[in-house]
């Protein structure tokens, strides 16, 4: 492997404490090293910004509902006559799709923006093999997937009876079967109630027949997660997403984390990650008196040390919403009368897909846009706040640079705010106009590199440029001394001047050089637990009677994960 040195760049890296000082980054054999010999190839990054490869903590890029979205939206690849399916470089595959890109476009677009790791946010365990096939075909990006546990019949039983050991043994078994990474909880109890067309709107609504409340589910999952000492905390999508007045349910859900303490050997000190908080910070009672409660929610988040959040910014595009929150998608399609797709999964979860147009002249969408920005701007601890668009729910990930530009340039966002049809109403119902804060490049590097890596338990290899970490380096054509503004900043962030993945140059001036330039890895967690006869008996019995496939055909064989990176955790 060659040695590379990136000279004279302005390095922003909270792990090594650099805030834009000019420094060199040395790479050898895919790792960051202290120094390299003079035979190393030199990359001149003078007047450019250098950061580690970014980490996306929450995105829907692989799996059954993503592919159902690709199937049923051919117009997304052919948006009103303008082709969204093109071959961008001589050696790369055809890239298709705007809101739901194909796996090739996903890998290449993320690389052009300087991303190195993607966390697939929801994997139904029954469909794990499909998720891993798509991960295998996504070029360049290292990936992992979070199996969903919030509506799992086994978890209902064990958490209802308080059998923490059984719950931990079952979770460890599922992670091993599905090559999963951590615990994802979507609309706890609600998606199981959706099996009968019902829902759980607050943390105290019991699930039909199983008689367990979302509060007990979330609390049990956090306990199980810390008992197993998993690298990532519980990843929560709380109940009542997207409805006016749901901020009370959000605060109730966040308060459940108060009693818990992080217990792991990966440097993570938080116990609950609440995802796409924008969809959960709504006030008012109907769409008419709909208002922002971002301030109230963020006041609590800033106070509470053991939770992390990601924003879920709306990017005002025609996109496709897809989530394991089955009931929400049904209500959304009753709102906009567009095509509704739904898949309920036996014993495990549900899923829904509905196209949605965040119109620039629709009051509610404009306010959702403002709420998303408020959440990031009110955050105090940048190491506990991450930027996402819950791709593709609030908008496609290809709009990240535009969200960063809105956060880093008040003028750019005010121009958008004042350009709205209902701008006066939006200004009244939110507080965005009064916020002057502009995120700095250093804070951006925290929110998109160090913070997600830390909360995922990957702080030792991703999100920083300290020696020993993976050599994922992104170089942007941004001179911190005269910062580009608005659209120039956005364009500079969307096309990296250079992007190195594991020491291999994958992108130069926004062009991906090869179809599969570097070997990508799939991360999964193998948590050792003591032998548990009870769980094995329950599992084999339920598969025999209630699953539609045999137990022996459930696990994901090794050839579906050709380049695994297994994180072993010794017994408790």
């Amino acid at each position, binding site marked *: 492997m060659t040695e590379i040195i990136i000279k004279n760049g302005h390095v922003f890296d909270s792990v090594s404490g650099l805030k834009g000082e000019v420094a060199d980054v040395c790479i050898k054999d895919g790792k960051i090293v202290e120094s390299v010999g003079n035979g190393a190839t030199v990359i001149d990054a003078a007047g450019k910004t250098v950061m580690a490869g970014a980490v996306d903590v929450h995105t829907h890029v692989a799996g059954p509902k993503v592919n159902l979205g690709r199937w049923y939206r*051919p117009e997304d690849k052919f948006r009103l*006559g303008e082709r969204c399916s093109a071959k961008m470089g001589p050696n790369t595959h055809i890239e298709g799709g705007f809101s739901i890109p194909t796996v090739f476009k996903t890998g290449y677009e993320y690389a052009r923006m300087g991303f190195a790791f993607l966390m697939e946010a929801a994997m139904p365990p029954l469909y794990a093999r499909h998720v891993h096939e798509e991960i295998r075909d996504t070029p360049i990006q290292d990936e992992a997937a979070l199996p969903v546990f919030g509506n799992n019949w086994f978890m209902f039983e064990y958490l209802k009876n308080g059998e923490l050991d059984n719950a931990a043994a079952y979770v460890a078994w599922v992670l091993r079967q599905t090559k999963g990474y951590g615990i994802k909880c979507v609309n706890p109890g609600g998606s199981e109630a959706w099996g009968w067309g019902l829902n759980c709107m607050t943390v105290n609504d019991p699930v039909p027949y199983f008689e367990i409340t979302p509060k007990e589910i979330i609390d049990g999952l956090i306990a199980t997660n810390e008992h197993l000492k998993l690298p990532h905390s519980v990843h929560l999508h709380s109940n009542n997403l997207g409805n006016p007045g749901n901020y009370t349910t959000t605060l109730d859900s966040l308060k459940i984390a108060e009693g818990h303490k992080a217990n792991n050997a990966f440097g993570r000190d938080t116990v609950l990650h609440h995802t796409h908080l924008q969809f959960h910070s709504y006030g008012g009672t109907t769409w008419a008196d709909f208002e922002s409660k971002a301030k109230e929610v963020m006041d609590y988040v800033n106070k509470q040390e053991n939770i992390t959040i990601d924003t879920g910014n709306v990017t005002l595009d025609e996109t496709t919403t897809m989530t394991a929150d089955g009931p929400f998608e049904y209500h959304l399609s009753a709102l906009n009368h567009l*095509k509704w797709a739904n898949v309920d999964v036996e014993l495990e979860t549900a899923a829904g897909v509905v196209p949605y147009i965040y119109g620039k002249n629709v009051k509610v969408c404009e306010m959702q846009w403002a709420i998303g920005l408020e959440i990031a701007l009110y955050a105090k601890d940048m190491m506990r706040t991450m930027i996402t668009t819950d791709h593709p729910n609030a908008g496609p990930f290809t709009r990240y640079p535009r969200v960063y530009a809105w956060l880093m340039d008040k003028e750019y966002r005010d121009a958008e705010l004042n350009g709205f049809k209902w701008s006066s109403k939006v200004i009244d119902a939110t507080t965005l106009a009064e916020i002057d804060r502009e995120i700095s490049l250093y804070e951006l590097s925290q929110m998109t590199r160090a913070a997600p890596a830390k909360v995922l338990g990957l702080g030792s290899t991703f999100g920083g440029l300290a020696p020993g970490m993976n050599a994922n380096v992104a170089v942007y054509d941004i001179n911190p001394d005269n910062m580009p503004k608005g659209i120039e900043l956005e364009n500079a962030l969307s096309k990296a001047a250079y992007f190195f993945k594991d020491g291999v140059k994958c992108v130069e001036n926004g062009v991906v050089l090869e179809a599969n330039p570097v070997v990508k890895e799939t991360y999964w967690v193998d948590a050792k637990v003591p032998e548990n006869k009870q769980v094995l008996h329950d599992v084999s019995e339920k598969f025999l009677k209630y699953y539609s496939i045999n137990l022996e055909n459930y696990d994901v064989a090794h050839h579906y994960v050709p380049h695994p990176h297994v994180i072993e955790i010794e017994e408790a």
Partner: protein
Amino acid sequence: MDTVTITLKKVPGLYLECESVTPDKFAGKNAEEIAALPCAEGKRNYVLGDWFEIAGAAGATAADTKIVVNGAGTDKCKYIGAWMTAGEVVVNGTADMFTGAWMEGGKLTVKGDVRSFSALQMKGGEFIIEGRAWNYLAAAYRGDWRGMQGGTIRVKGDVGSDLGTFMNGGTIIVEGNADIHVGTHAEGGTIIIKGKAHRRVGGQMVKGEIYVFGGCDVMMPGFKKIEEREIEVDGEKHVFNVFIGDLGERHPKSKGEVVYGHLYTLKE
């Protein structure tokens, strides 16, 4: 209006994709530049000059450019006049699929037949077909809920199936007959069929008007006759049976009352 006449030298073995044959692409170009415009047969890339004799030069803008397409193999040329916004195109003969698709303006006349998926998601302009039109005329692209938005289409001959699916606006006048599925999922716009429509007219229709002078062989159960009224349609005054529907579909309310699609068939 400057006229460019292009004549096919030989009949294509497969099908020629002529996205470049529109006033917008020809505007401001002389014959050589037009001859250099791309076209393709399968994966083999050509230039227009390989297939067409090009005479005359285009006008400065699309609006004052007229294109005349001649030759025996025009029925193997796709995408003629697709995405055109202004100017005029005349095809002397049959044109293949996607003729005038995503058309936004200008005038497109086809002397012969027009094959499937013509005038797809048309936004405006005028489209005259003197022969027959095949299926999915002025329909929406697969999966898109936004069909034809505006403009007028006049078909002298018969029309195939799936006329104007997901139609939002504009007018389609068919002098001949129509096959199954007329105005399915329509949410606006007007369809006038002077001949007969076979079956499934106005299926899952939310809003819009469909006139079928010759009536339908089988009426949709979701349509209910409410009255008989004399209406002036395309210059002719007739008494029509008025049906509202599709009662099986969801109907929005505007200003308090429910909006229905309307189906009119000649009284006698």
